């Protein structure tokens, strides 16, 4: 567990040293009185259309279900999800506006960035692929795809897509769930799952997910097409 935190910490330290932003993460808009202009507060980390940036600590938010994005914005504002830069930015924004911001990024469909080329052991990739596609019945872990969709693009209204995320972000979030630092609306299905995963499971899932090609259709699945294996508060 400590090893994971060290990796995270090193990544964050490195964050301050890059020289200038890539072009798609620089503020730009057409009309001042537009949601595009209002969302400029997000772009240096999440990219001009929410596509994410080279810095893997900042996730792709484009195309994630609006309900999921709203839940995260509200949790950052209310301090139930902790990440100081986000807590600070949205501290004094009212609900209807957070919903508008969530809707804005949910509708974006920017192209995916290059998939991650970090090398991972073949055994880890195989374990990751197995967890995503089948889960681990012996540990009581359902397949990621059972809720996050066959294309792993998420499910309306509250389950995020997993493709296009960097390994470091996936590891960070699963670790936060395991140690009780991140929560979802009760019943918190991700907590049940994450606490059943080992360090190497987390690394394997992250390695496999971050190595996948962009999906043909980036839209999340419609809600309740399938019966989910666990009760999740964010789907209610």
């Amino acid at each position, binding site marked *: 567990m400590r090893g994971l935190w060290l990796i995270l910490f090193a990544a964050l330290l490195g964050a301050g040293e890059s020289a200038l932003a890539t072009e798609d993460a*620089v*503020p730009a808009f057409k009309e001042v009185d537009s949601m595009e202009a*209002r969302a400029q*507060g997000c772009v*240096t*980390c999440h990219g001009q259309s929410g596509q994410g940036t080279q810095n893997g600590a900042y996730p792709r938010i484009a195309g994630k279900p609006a309900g999921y994005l709203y839940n995260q914005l509200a949790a950052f504002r209310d301090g139930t999800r902790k990440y100081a830069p986000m807590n600070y930015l949205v501290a004094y924004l009212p609900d209807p*506006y957070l919903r508008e911001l969530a809707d804005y990024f949910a509708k974006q469909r920017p192209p995916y960035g290059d998939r991650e080329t970090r090398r991972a052991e073949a055994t880890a990739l195989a374990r990751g692929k197995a967890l995503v596609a089948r889960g681990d019945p012996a540990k009581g872990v359902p397949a990621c795809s059972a809720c996050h969709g066959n294309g792993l693009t998420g499910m309306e209204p509250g389950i995020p897509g997993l493709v296009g995320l960097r390994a470091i972000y996936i590891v960070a979030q699963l670790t936060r769930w395991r140690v009780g630092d991140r929560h979802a609306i009760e019943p918190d299905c991700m907590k049940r799952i994450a606490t059943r995963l080992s360090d190497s499971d987390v690394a394997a899932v992250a390695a496999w997910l971050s190595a996948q090609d962009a999906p043909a259709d980036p839209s999340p699945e419609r809600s309740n097409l399938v019966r989910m294996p666990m009760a999740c508060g964010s789907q209610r």
Partner: protein
Amino acid sequence: MNRRSLAWGVVVGCVVLAAGGLAALYLLRPGMLPQTPGADPVNATTQTINLGEYLARAGDCVACHTEVNGKPFAGGRAMATPFGNLFVPNITPDDETGIGKWTADDFYRMMHTGISRDGTLLYPAMPFASYTKVTRADSDAIYAYLMAVPPVKQANRPHALRFPFNKRELLLGWRTLYFKEGEYIADPKQSAEWNRGAYLVEGLGHCTMCHTAINALGGSSESKEFEGGMIPNQNWYAPSLTSNREAGLGNWDIKDIVDLLQAGASNRGTVYGPMAEVVYNSLQYMSDDDVKAMAVYLKALPQRESEPPPTSQARLVDPTVIGLGRKVYVAQCAMCHGDEGKGHPPAYPPLAGNQSITMASPVNSIRMVLNGGYAPGTKRNPRPHGMPPFSHILNDDEVAAVVTYIRVAWENSGTPITPAQANELRKLLPE
């Protein structure tokens, strides 16, 4: 009398004096107020309770007395001070853990003198030095409102102050130095509007709590009122309201002041950080008349400096720094703030001629570049624009160069800053 017995005499004398002093303090300590039947706050009218709600907002009680995600007014929030953590008390009308057993007299004495119901001296984190100016009628209305909010059973946490600040007796000294008791007295030479503004700014608004520098004893001297200072433990600079080189509003239009206070964004500038919280929780709910009265009073505050404003420092800055600053500005900032620093107010504030950019303390500008910020979402500006963080994109040299650039470009009269200053603020978490 030999030398030894003289020494003993001195020691015994000192002990007797000290004991006498302690006894006097003990005897003079405040106690419970006698019960005075008569007032009938339990049957306060709807009108009084509504007025109380409005006044409680003007006093921003909820900001400190509510924990993040907690029940309103139930307290528990840790307030970091240079002397340790204070835990703000429950002011819901719960009989055991709140103020349910308080009378209107108890409440007024607390507001007016900083003495709690049981006689305890309050720490001045509770702004009783400002609330003392509140009228009895307004205090009663706030009391009636607090009695009408849902009671919450939540015991108060003891404070965690360091020695010697955990000794409340020391507050007698603080009170002697820094506390002047008394309701607001109208100035007959000023308009009713000015007086209303003064009453709100100096009283419930407790603006001096941040906009007057706090010294090592946690006091602020009256002669320096509204002259600005760093907000302890928040690391934002609360600019002077009496200097047109800082946040003095002497040459602002009343409309712009009203917009800044009530909407959170104006054609001259925008509120961020702790002031965004004040606008979000308090000022956006104030009536047009009251906000205008505050604007009239703030605009008329006497200006404290006499020397002429400094001229542009641009020619004094290392050209390579200006070059780097301009390069960063053009790449990252000009889209919203414009090539000439004019911005798109009120969405994106102007930087040219903006006092909060040029004032002596660069802290707020550096923090904005590092952490960005959204203006508060208010009734009048429910969909505010925001600025992204740049701490992960710009290194210390680049932050210092771009902040130096906006402080001296376009005839701005600010001074250069150093990479070390940027680095200091980078180490802090955004808040």
